[in-house]
Each structure stands twice: as structure tokens, then as C-alpha cells.
């Protein structure tokens, strides 16, 4: 009986935490929620693994950003510097 009550309590916590996992990983929850989610994902294998999947997806997506053309960025920085130095504003 004690195990059943404990299991139901854990399941209720899973249902509460799982919708918050992504916001937690995005650092978009308040402090008490962050602590609650962190505590739960450390203890719950299922939610911990789901959080890990989302974290790996986030990390893989972030790595895509490294592909921005550095030459285009360099040209834009030159353009911006020219604006700052000479106030050289072409007509739009």
C-alpha cells in the first residue's frame, strides 16, 4: 500500500514536471520551478532521459549556427564601421 501511494505521488510529479522540461532547459522558469524540475529529473529516470533528449536536440540545433558565412559578416562589419566613421548613408 505504501509503495502504491509513493508510486502515485511520483506519477503525479511526472505529469506536473514533464510539460515544464523544455522551458526549464530554456532557462525560462522561475527559481522555485527550476529547483523542483531539477530535483525531479535527477530522481526520475524517465523524465531525466526525456530532458536529455531535448538538451541534445537544443545542442545540435545550436551547432547549426556556426555555419553563418563569416565573409558576409565581415562585409557587414565593414559597412557598419563605415557608417560609424563617416556617416556615409546611402539612399534606401
Amino acid at each position: 500500500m505504501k509503495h502504491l501511494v509513493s508510486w502515485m505521488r511520483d506519477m503525479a510529479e511526472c505529469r506536473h514536471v514533464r510539460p515544464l522540461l523544455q522551458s526549464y532547459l530554456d532557462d525560462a522558469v522561475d527559481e522555485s520551478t527550476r529547483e523542483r524540475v531539477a530535483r525531479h529529473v535527477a530522481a526520475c529516470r524517465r523524465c531525466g532521459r526525456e530532458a536529455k533528449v531535448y538538451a541534445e536536440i537544443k545542442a545540435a540545433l545550436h551547432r547549426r549556427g556556426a555555419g553563418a558565412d563569416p565573409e558576409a559578416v565581415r562585409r557587414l562589419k565593414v559597412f557598419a564601421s563605415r557608417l560609424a566613421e563617416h556617416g556615409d548613408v546611402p539612399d534606401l
Partner: protein
Amino acid sequence: MRHSEAAADEVRAEAFTRYVLPETNLLFRVALTLTRQPADAEDLVQDTLVRAYRAVERFDGKHPRAWLLTILRNTHLNRNRRRRPALFNDPDHALAQLDVVDPGGSAEDVFLDGRFDAAVDAAFAELPQRYQQAVALVDIEGLTYQEAAHVLQVPKGTVLSRVHRARNKIRKRLKAAGFVRRGGGR
């Protein structure tokens, strides 16, 4: 008179150098997300830089990134209006057509190898554009939900919903491709 104009130019240049120049890289990456074409993105950022230069003397110095993203977004909208007036007011139906997030399921393991990023890329490419934009701004560019909402001109909750659903769709694709394994329970 000439002296005061020179002083104003100096103030403008100083503010532009302080608030705008450090964000050039970010502006280009966000522009890429909006236009999806490097040449268009470069043009958009040039226009944005010129508009920022003209407006910087009226900028109060608070939240420069949000200020710049607003200029970028408005410049992008104006360019679209000029180019594609008939397409501009397309309603957003994509949200309602997407799967509901599945709260159930078993524990999952991620298989990380050299193909994982390629699989995420492929799943990302299959997302509707609105979802790509939201997840690109948050995960690739590192914007907050609020900053992304600013760029996309939608409520913060819409960004949150799009990002979460996008990642969930990617997770499902990874699972179907065998990168995420169903495992045991608690």
C-alpha cells in the same frame, strides 16, 4: 553651427559603435532566419544598420538588442510589403495543424554519434517555416522567448508553443530514425 553638427555626428557615431556594431553578427543570423537567403539577409542587415544609424541619437540606451531587433523586424516587413504585397497577410494556420505534444511514453535514450546532427538537420528542414523560425531564433541564435517574440511580432506564448512543438516533432523524427531508444521506466 558647423561645430554643433560635428558634435552631433560624433555622439551618433559613438552611440552606434557602442550599441549597434557589437550586434552585427546577431543581426545577420536573425536576418538569415527571416529571409532564408544569405544575399537577402545581407541586404536586410545593411538596411537595418542604416536605419539604426539614423535613429540612434534618439535611442535611450536601454535594451539595445530589443531596439535593434525591432528595427530589423520592421525593415523586413517593409521590404516584404514592397516585394510581395499579396502574400503578406497570410493567416497563420500552421499552429492548429500540428500534433499535440504527447505527455506519455517511456524513458528514452539518445544515441549520439556522427549522424545525430545530420538527423536533427533533416528533421529541422521538414518543420513548417514558422516553427523553423521560432526554434532557430531560440536554439540557434540564443534569443529569449521574449526577444524572439519581438522579432516575429507574435505573443511570447506563441513562440514558446512553436519552439516546444518543433522540438517535439524533431524528437519524434529522431525516435522514428532510431536515434532515441525507448527504455525502461522509473
